[in-house]
Structures are given as C-alpha cells and as structure tokens.
C-alpha cells in the first residue's frame, strides 16, 4: 500500500508535551497519508532550522548550541552515534545522490565540513563565509553545494573538487583549494533559506530567501539572477514545486505564500526571459495563505508532498499544518509536537517502485570521522589515495545490473523462472531421447552402449573408473586366492609326507609288536618245556622213590636263576 511519511525535528522549548509519547522526543517519523499517524520517534535531540539531514539509512541531527551531531539509525530506530566537531554546526545537508553517504556540515565559523560517512574521511573547506553557514543545499546530481550565510552571501561549491584527493595545481593561482567556485551576493541581509530546482541538467535554478524580504531565483551554474521577488515580509523558509513551476515561502506570522513562475502566456520560459529578469516581481501581501489562527507562530519549515498538491508547514507552536496548494488555503493540522518544528523532510513514497532510487548498496553503520593523519593528507606523495582508504558498505543484489547477460546468454535463469522449461531445452531433450531410442531400435545392446557412450562421456568415464576399480579388486582377490591355494597345496604335501612318515612308524610298531609276540610265544614255550621237565623230574624222582618235592625245590632254585635271566631277556 502506498503511504507517505515525513520526518520532522523540533527545537526543544520550555513547554511540556501534551502526550507522554512525545516526551523527550526530538525527531518524529510521521505518516501523513493516507492517515496521519506517528510511526516512530528518536529521542534527545534539539535542532535548529536546516539542521536535519535524512539519508536512506540514517538521520543526522545537528544539535542547537552544541558542536555535536546526533546520528540515528533508521533501520534499528535507535541513536547510533554522537559525533563531536570542532565547531558548532549551524546547517546540515546530505549529498551523494540516492545513497546519501556524504554529509555536508555548515559551521559557525563560516566553513563547510564534508564527511564521507562510509569511509570516515573528513574534508574542511576554506572559511569563505564571514558568518555562520545557516542553510545548505546539495543539487540533485550531487555536483554542487549551495550554502547561505548570515553575511548575506551565497556560495556555490563543487563537491567533486572539494572531495578529490588530487587538487588542481595552485601555481599562478587565483584560488586556494577547497574554496567556492562562485559567489552570489544579490541579497542584502542574512540568508534564511535556499531551495534548488529538481533538474539534473545545466539549467537548474536556485531560490534563496533573505531577511531583506526578498526571494531571488537564480541560475547557480552562472550566478545570473533570473527573477527577484519582493515579498510582503521576510520569509523564513522556502521550498520548490516538484516540477519547478512555483515556489512556496513561509512567513514569520505563520502564513504561507505560493508564488508561481508562470503567469502569462509567454513564448519563453518566464524565468529565462531576459526582458523580465531585471524587473523584480512583487507578490502582494493579500495573496498570502493565512493560518487558521494567529497563535501558530512563525513558519519554521516547509515541505511538499510527493505529488506537489499538499504543502506542509512546521510552525513555531509545534503544529504541522497542511495546506491545499490548489485551493491556496489552510487545510488541516497533521500533527502537534509542542516544540517548534524546525525541520520537515519528506521521504519518498513507500510502496511505489522507484527504479532510479533503488539502492545498490546500503550502509548499516556510519564510520565516524577519522582525525588520523593518514587519511587527511599523505605527505609522502601528495594526491595519492592512501592505502587504508576503505569504503564500508553492503552491496545489495540489484535487479537491474545484469539485464544483458540474462537476455543474452543465461539460459539457466530463464529456465529457472519459466513455467516449465524453455522450448530450446525441451527440444534438446527430445532430440536426445530420440537419439537414444534410435540406438536401441537399431540393434543389439552393444550399439546402444556405443551411442550412449558417445553422447554421455561422463557416464562412460564413471563406468571405466568403476570397472577399473573392480578389476583391481578382482586382481587382488585372485592373487589372494592364489597364495591361499599355494599354502593349501604345501600343506597337503606336508600332510602327505607326514602320513608316509606315520605309516612307516606304524609298520615299525607292527614289527615290534610281532617280535614281542614271537618272544612271548617262545617264552611260553620255554616255560611249558620247563614245566614239562619239572613234572618229568618229579615223576622220575617219585618213580625212583625219592622225595619228588625236594628235587622240585632244587630245580626251582635253578630255575629261579634261569627265569630271572629269561625275564631280563624278555624285558629287553
């Protein structure tokens, strides 16, 4: 959904805010369309006019009466840093196009300080203003800075040449480096506010207002006055229509006036019509758009809505009023911040694609100014970029940086976001499948293999490696089995020899057994013989009548000796 927001900052006054949510609050992020609502707040800040600067990632607020700048992170919604400076800061502006990573500070002493928030480098200019720099604007293309001062002069500075490491040679020089390239001194009193046109080209305009009740439209590329406007009273702030058709000023009494550049049917752009340039224009006081009541106080700040049809004013009494540009009158109160609303800064619409504003990088944190010598001036080789000059940022994926490769040679991304697959890829696949089929229909699996191998070398490769691996394992297995076989045969032969050996042993044992058998038989036979002999001897003795027993005893004694002998023999 589209919504439009602005950031307003206030100058702390003695009054206490009505609502508790606004206590201590110095900067408010307020949605004003479609419905006014306070979105978020940043606390502890008190800024004078022209002392608020908003970049896509941060809010910078120069504190009034102090030499410090508060830095708030818009992402995190907190105070990120407090940066001290050597002088009081009277005005702030952000340069650097859509990224806004250069902060321009106008000091009390009349010089500008440029701070590259992504590198921490800080460059100061000459103190060309004699009095505090009260208003600062940077042109759309970030080429020029226009600064206004209380000393009634307006200086135009070249951003690129101030920041450049290489300074133009200052030989027969007219100017010292870092001085303004042009000075505009048509005003007679302190400059209150400056607004630049929205063109990036060479015919851009500046409108400056001063305390001498004049507003001058001029060309800051040449310093030429395009038109002088004699205002009914002194303007406090000025802003330009988005198409540069008119400008709006706010007055001390709280009223607002819209002054158009185009008034009559002219053959020329009225601002560039030389015949009108020297003639001042005097918008009438009755033409002013009056505030709803007289207690609104002076208009402190002005801002225009995106479509240029609603003008917002920050009033001294803390109210933010909206005015209908078409009807040229006050419309409604948008917000009430109690304290004087010194700065109003419109934010680009949320939810509207801004291709040129799309960020390609974002700085999450700022780098505080570094005061070390290395970055400021390298004495060794002047003009060289110091080695530790580094740029802190986050590169974001951008949709537009690669349109060329996408259309030309990136089938992948095309296929990725296609509803299924691009035709070329489908056809390729079909052709491949057809080729496979043909191969299959033609003949044996061997041709299939060959065609497949032809078109799919990798598959073949993997196959080969797989086969090789298999082969090696097989070989290993083979050798292993070989050795195993070897060992078994060895074993078998050994076993066989063992067997033979054992058989021999068995035979031997058999022989021994036979021998003992024979001996046993012999002994048996001997024994029987002796027995026979004894019996014969007994019988003989008996026959002879002698005591047989005695004979036997005698024989036994003899036998004892004999048997012992035989026993010995048998044991052998």
């Amino acid at each position, binding site marked *: 959904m589209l919504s439009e927001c602005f950031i307003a900052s206030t100058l702390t006054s003695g009054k206490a805010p009505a609502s508790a949510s606004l206590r201590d609050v110095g900067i408010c992020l307020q949605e004003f369309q479609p419905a006014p609502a306070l979105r978020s707040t940043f606390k502890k800040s008190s800024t004078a006019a022209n002392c608020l600067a908003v970049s896509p990632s941060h809010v910078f607020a120069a504190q009034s009466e102090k030499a410090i700048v508060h830095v708030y992170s818009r992402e995190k919604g907190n105070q990120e840093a407090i940066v001290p400076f050597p002088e009081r800061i009277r005005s702030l502006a952000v340069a650097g196009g859509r990224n806004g990573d250069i902060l321009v500070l106008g000091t009390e002493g009349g010089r500008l300080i440029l701070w590259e928030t992504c590198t921490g480098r800080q460059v100061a200019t000459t103190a060309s203003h004699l009095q505090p720099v009260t208003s600062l604007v940077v042109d759309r293309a970030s080429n020029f800075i226009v600064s206004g001062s209380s000393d009634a002069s307006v200086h135009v500075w070249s951003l690129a040449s101030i920041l450049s490491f290489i300074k133009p040679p200052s030989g027969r020089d007219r100017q010292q480096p870092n001085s303004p390239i042009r000075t505009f001194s048509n005003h007679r009193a302190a400059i209150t506010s400056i607004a630049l046109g929205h063109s990036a080209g060479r015919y851009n305009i500046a409108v400056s207002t001063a305390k001498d009740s004049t507003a001058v439209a001029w060309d800051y590329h040449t310093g030429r006055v395009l038109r002088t406007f004699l205002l009914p009273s002194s303007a406090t702030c000025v802003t330009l229509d988005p198409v540069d058709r008119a400008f709006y000023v706010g007055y001390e009494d709280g009223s607002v006036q819209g002054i158009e550049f185009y008034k009559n049917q002219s053959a020329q752009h009225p601002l560039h019509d030389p015949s009108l340039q020297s003639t001042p224009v005097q918008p009438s006081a009755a033409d002013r758009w009056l505030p709803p009541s007289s207690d609104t106080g002076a208009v402190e700040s002005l801002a225009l809505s995106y479509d240029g049809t609603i003008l917002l004013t920050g009033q001294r009494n803390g109210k933010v009023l909206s005015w209908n540009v078409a009807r040229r009158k006050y419309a409604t109160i948008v917000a009430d911040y109690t304290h004087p609303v010194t700065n109003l800064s419109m934010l680009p619409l949320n939810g509207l694609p801004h291709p040129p504003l799309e960020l390609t990088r974002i700085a999450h944190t700022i780098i505080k100014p570094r005061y070390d010598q290395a970055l400021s001036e390298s004495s060794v080789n002047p003009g060289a970029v110091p080695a530790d000059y580094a740029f802190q940022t986050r590169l974001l994926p951008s949709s537009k940086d690669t349109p060329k490769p996408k259309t030309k040679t990136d089938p992948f991304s095309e296929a990725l976001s296609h*509803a299924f697959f691009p035709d070329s890829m489908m056809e390729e696949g079909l052709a491949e499948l057809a080729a496979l089929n043909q191969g299959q229909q033609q003949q044996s699996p061997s041709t299939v293999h060959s065609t497949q191998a032809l078109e799919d070398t990798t598959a073949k490769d993997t196959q080969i490696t797989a086969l090789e691996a298999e082969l090696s394992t097989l070989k290993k297995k083979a050798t292993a089995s070989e050795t195993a076989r070897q060992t078994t045969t060895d074993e078998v032969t050994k076993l066989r020899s063992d067997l033979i050996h054992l058989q021999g042993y068995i035979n031997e044992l058999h022989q021994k057994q036979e021998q003992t058998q024979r001996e046993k038989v012999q002994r048996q036979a001997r024994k029987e013989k002796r027995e026979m002999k004894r019996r014969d001897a007994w019988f003989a003795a008996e026959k002879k009548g002698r005591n047989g027993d005695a004979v036997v005893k005698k024989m036994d004694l003899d036998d004892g000796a004999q048997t012992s002998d035989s026993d010995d023999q048998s044991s052998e």
Partner: protein
Amino acid sequence: MATMSLRAVTHRLTTTPVQQLPPIASFLATSLSDCGELLSAPQNQKTGKSDSDNAIQIHKLKTRLGSLLQDRSFEGRWTGVVLVKATVEAGQWEVLRGCEPLVRSLIAILAKQDPVTTKKMCIITLTRIFHLTYQYPTLVREITTPSLPGFITSILNLVSVKPSSEPIRKLRPSTPFLEIALHVILELIARHPTTFRPFSAQIHSLLQAIIGSTSPTYPKPVMELAQRLFISLHNCAPKNAAGDEWRNANLLTISSIHRTSDYVFRSIIEQWESVDPNLRQAAAPQDYTQEVGDDGPDPLGLSGWRGIHSGVDRILALLRLLSTFFSTPTASAVSIPVGQILDLTSRLTSVIVPNESGGVQANSQISREERESLWTELPRIHAACMKLLVSAMNALETGTMSVAQTILEQATWVFRAEKFSRKVRVSMYNLVRSLLPIVGPSMTKQAVSSLTDLFQTCCVDLLPPADDTNPSAGSSTDAKGKSKANQVAVNADSFLNSGKQVRQVKQGPLFPELKRAASELLPIILTYVPTELLVPSLRGEIDRKIILTADKNAMISSVLNPLPAARGRGAGSSIIPFLARSYADEMEVEGLIRPRMPVLMSTPDLNGNVVVDEDEDEDEDMSVSAYQPTTQSTGFLRTSPPSAALSSQTTSVETFQTSTPAPSLNKRVYEEPTPQAPVAQPAEKKEDAQVKRARFEDDTIAAPTKPSLAKESPATFTGTAAIPVEQSSVTTTSTPQSVQTAAPFPKPVPATTPVKISAANETEESDDEMPTLNMEPDTDDDDDEEMDG
C-alpha cells in the same frame, strides 16, 4: 474449463504409453500451468462435488508424477521431470508442501545413467523447488534443509571427483554440467549459507582450479560464474566473520595481482611506488635465466604459470575477479579497500607502451623479445584495469567522488599512449561515461581540453571519415591503416570510380562494441561537460556525427544543451530540424517541440497554456553570451548596490511623492496584473463560489477605475520599451533597475493593489502580447551589446 483440462491431462498421462509421453510433455506442461488456480487452491476447504473431483484429479496427478520419476525408462523420467517443474510452478505452496518424496526421487535421478538434459532439467527443477520453499520457513525445515546436502553432494559428484577424505575435489575433464552446477550453487549459497558451510572448502578447491587455469582456460560464462561463486563463498563464513572473509579474499586477490605483475613486468624497471608501506619491499628475487613464470601457489592459492602470455592471462583473470567483487552482493557490510585498489591500478597503468623516444627504463638483464611481447600485451591489461574501475564506479556511484579525479588521470595517461588499441578505446569510453556525471559539471577549461583528444577519437570511431582526403582528422589506427592500404589501390581505382571507394571504406570489419561505446558516450559529453567549455570545432564535429548516425538520444541531448552563441555569430544554431525530420513521431521529440505541460498546478483555475518554444534554451544562451561581455557591468551592479539602492530609494520616493499615481502605477502594472490573471480565470470554469464572489467585487471596483486602465495599457508599452534601453547600456541600467528593486517599498503597495486587481481582467490581453513584442527588441539589444563589446 480448468477442471476439464486437468482431467484431460491426468487421463492422457495415465493412458499414454510411457514411450510416447515426451512428445506431448510440452503440451501437458502448458495445460498444467494453465490449471494453476486449481493446483494452488487450498485443499482442505473442499465443499462442492466438483472440488472433491478436483482433489481426486490432483491426487491422481501427483501419484502419476511420483511413479513417472521412478519409471524404468529414460522417457518416463524425462517427462516426469518436466511435469514436476510445471506442477510446482503452477501449484506453488499447495504442491510444494507435499513434494518431499518427489525431491528424493529427483535427487536419485542425478545418480542414474540418464541423458544430460534429464539431469540438467532435474537440477533446475530441484533448484526451483528450493527457491520457492525459501519463503516458507516450515517448508524449508521440512524439505530444503534435509535434502539440500544430498543435492549438493550429487551435483559436486557430477562435476568432480573426491579422491581422498580431505575436503578437496578434482574437476572432471569436460563435463557438460560444470556451468549449471556453478549456477545452482551460486543461486542457493546466499540463502542457505549454513547448509553449504561443510562444502565450502571443497567448492573452494574447485574454483581455484577454474580461476587459476591458464593454458586451457574455461569458457567465459563459466569463468564469470566461478568468480562470482568464489566471492559468494564468504556467505558461508560464521555469522560475523563474513565481512572479514570478503575483505580477506579481496586483499589476497590484490596481492596475487601484485605478485604476478612482479614477474610479468620484470623486463622493465617500474617507476611506481606503493602508498602501502607493506608493499614497498622489493619483490622476491627471480631467476632471469628462465622463461618468465611463477611456480608456486600465489597468495590466492592458484597454481603456477609460465610464459608472458599466460602471466597476462592470469592478471586479467584476477582483475576480472576483482571487478566481480563490486558486482556481487555481499552478506553483510564489507569494507572495500578503495585505496589499495587504486594503488594497484596506478601500478598497472604507470607502465605504458613507450613512444619512439622511449621513456621507459628497461631492465638490461632481460631480452628485448620479452620486453616487446610485454608491450603488445599491455593494452589488454589496461583495458581490464579500466573495466575494474568502471565496475567500482558503478557500485559506489557518488562514493567514488573523492577518487574520480585520480581515476581520470590514470585513464587519460594510458589513453594518450595506447589509443591505437581498440580495446583500450572501448573501455576508456565506458569509463569516461561513468566518470563524467560525477566530475563533468564542475570541470575547468583545462580539464575539458585534456579530454578533447578523447572526444575527437570518439567521433572518429563512431563514424570513420568516409573520404580519405582528410585522414588526418581520423587519428584512429584502423582508419589510417585502411587509407594506407587503399593508397596502393588508389593509383588505379580512385580515378575510375571514387564512389565505389567510399563504399569500400564502409565495408571494413565492424566493431559493434566500439560503435556502441562511442555512441553512448556522446550524449553524456553533451549533457555533463559544460557546453561553453567545448571547443566549437569539436562541438561541430560531434553534431555532425550525431546527425549522420541519426542517434536519437544524442540528438536530443544536443538540442537540450545548445551551443552558446558566439560573439559575431547570429543566433545559436541547433540541430533540432534534423531531430524533427528524423523522429517526428517520437514522444520525446513531440514534447520537446510542442510542450503542453499544464504549466501550473493541477488546479483547473491555473492551467494557462504557455507555449515554450524550443528556442527558449537558445535564447537563454544567447543572453548568456550576451551577458558575458558585460559581466563587468553586472559585477559593477553587484558591487555597488548599496549606493545605487540608496539613490534609487530616494528617487522612487521622490517620484512617488511628486508625480501623479499614474506613473508609479505603470511600473506596478507591468508586473502585477499577471499574478492576478490566473485567479480570475477559474471563475469561468470552476464551481469555486468564493472566487466568483471575488470577481463580482472586482467588477464593481473595476467599473469606476476603468478609465485609468485604458490609460494604463499604453503606459505599459512604454514601460516595456524602456527595458531594452536599460539593458543596452551600462550607464542607463543602474537607475531604472534600481528603481525597480526599490519598488518593494511597503507604503505604495496597499494603495495600488485594488486597482491592480481590477486591472487584471482588462489588461490580460494586452499583457499576453507583450512577450512577443519583446522578442524583437531582445535580439536587437543583444546586437547592440555585441557592438558595445
């Protein structure tokens, strides 16, 4: 209808034999993606009969797809992959939440023996599924996180072999999947850094091999992808180290280039001195007897190289890698070492091809051959350097403001010596194109004149001079070379038919890149370089080329930035007639010539039509130039205003007091009626009652004052007539103008306002004509001034 086609699809899908599915796959996929509404409709709220029927069809479709993916035939799997992609795209979340089994079988296909396209499509489908699930954390948890590691492994296996347990992989030679694999990893790595973390070392080893390849280099798209992926690897670093990782890789690349150039530049003695004290140490001693080369791994871990051509190839690859750092999104805030990069380019650009008189200190230990081959390689290096600077500028935009001047000096230094090289010229045009918007508008005359040579070469490149009678105008070598070659032929042919010869010149080889770069540079020159600082002859040349090439953008920018009228010449010339003739139908041209912008607010009461002629700009410029001679006078005005104002105040007071109100009215009327006019107009159109009433009042007041108005209109004429007079001479200017500046006097204002309001209605017409009347005196007085000057 959708229901029917869904039913038809499922029917055909189930009844057609698998072998015949591929030819109708495309048709089925188209029908499926047309049924997106049905497929993506939430299924839990099926109420009607048709809904449940749909649910059945969808279920059928899903089961069929699942079985197709696991089909035995190539055809079946191929069709399955195609239809899964179509279904997922059409069904989004409804299909995604149930696609886990599909994902598994898709990953399984990658390991099978499928044809190349099946695998490629399979990879793309999986990537798309992971892509689509990314926005649903639950699906990421259920589908992506579990299956992603398997997917990464199988992709890496397709392109490489992992020989050991170490996290190092070797590329397979000539795999058709390398490009797509890099694409996929690049696509997914930033979104799933933690899943990729275990693989980061393996991927890194692969990329080193690709980036470091010198002799058989990989095709350009693969190289680019590898470089981008190499840089994206920092995404995998643990939480807060990503920025450091990025910076480290960047610094290593820089020091790798330094090391390589140590070797490549060994045949000369370099004049360059680094701003970084760490780099000032002398380079490692080298063996001068060998051919130039580097053996060991350099800081980035790339392998060695040999031969000057390979060395330069390596430098180019690294420079390209360095440029890619600028175009690749980063995971967090990183610190870009701008200083060191510029130090590097200053080293590389400080060595230039010497002119005849020499100027480069040679290293006597090295042969002349090597030195000469270095000279021929130098333009390549320098073109790559400029590309690096362009990509830095594109990324940092206004952040490069501080170094823009440095870059410009480095580039012009190279250009002066090497503009013979077409590559250097192309990259120089591109570089200047991105530089001018930053430094152009605040350029000084010297800065512009140092670029004049470049601008002239650009003109020549855009359209080489056709006739070789003035080849001196074309300093480009190809023009010269051609004219030389022709001179041989000229002897015979030029006398016969010179018309043919002109055609011959045009028939040379075409360099579309050079033409494109040149034609894109021209409008930038016209827009950003202050017009008055361009030499008129150069501006004439540019306009001539623009007309001859009929480049619309350049023509418009020429018209929008007209040549300031020079003294002694008439009105500033413009090429707008050519623009109007060639592009009368284009909207820009129409808007330029016949503007119809509602000049004032979107209020019906304020839309006065102002015919702003295109002459406007020129006139204005005329006035610029007219004023320039008399800046003294304006300066005088500016410096002496206090006294002038004082005197004028007194005079005006006097006139007011002494004269009748009529003369003071005249001055007032001259500027006042116009602001009132718009207020009066609305009354006719708008319902604004208030205004109407005001008008009535006006009328009533107007009635009595009418006579005075009648007197006034002639008076205004005298007033306008006075203006040229006051501009024509310095002396007269001071008084009338100061009267007008003093006019804000508060007192007379209220007295005159009512009269003026009434005057508004009546004097409108006469006022309208005034400007046209002014036109003539305008130019007259310009002439007068010129005479004066």
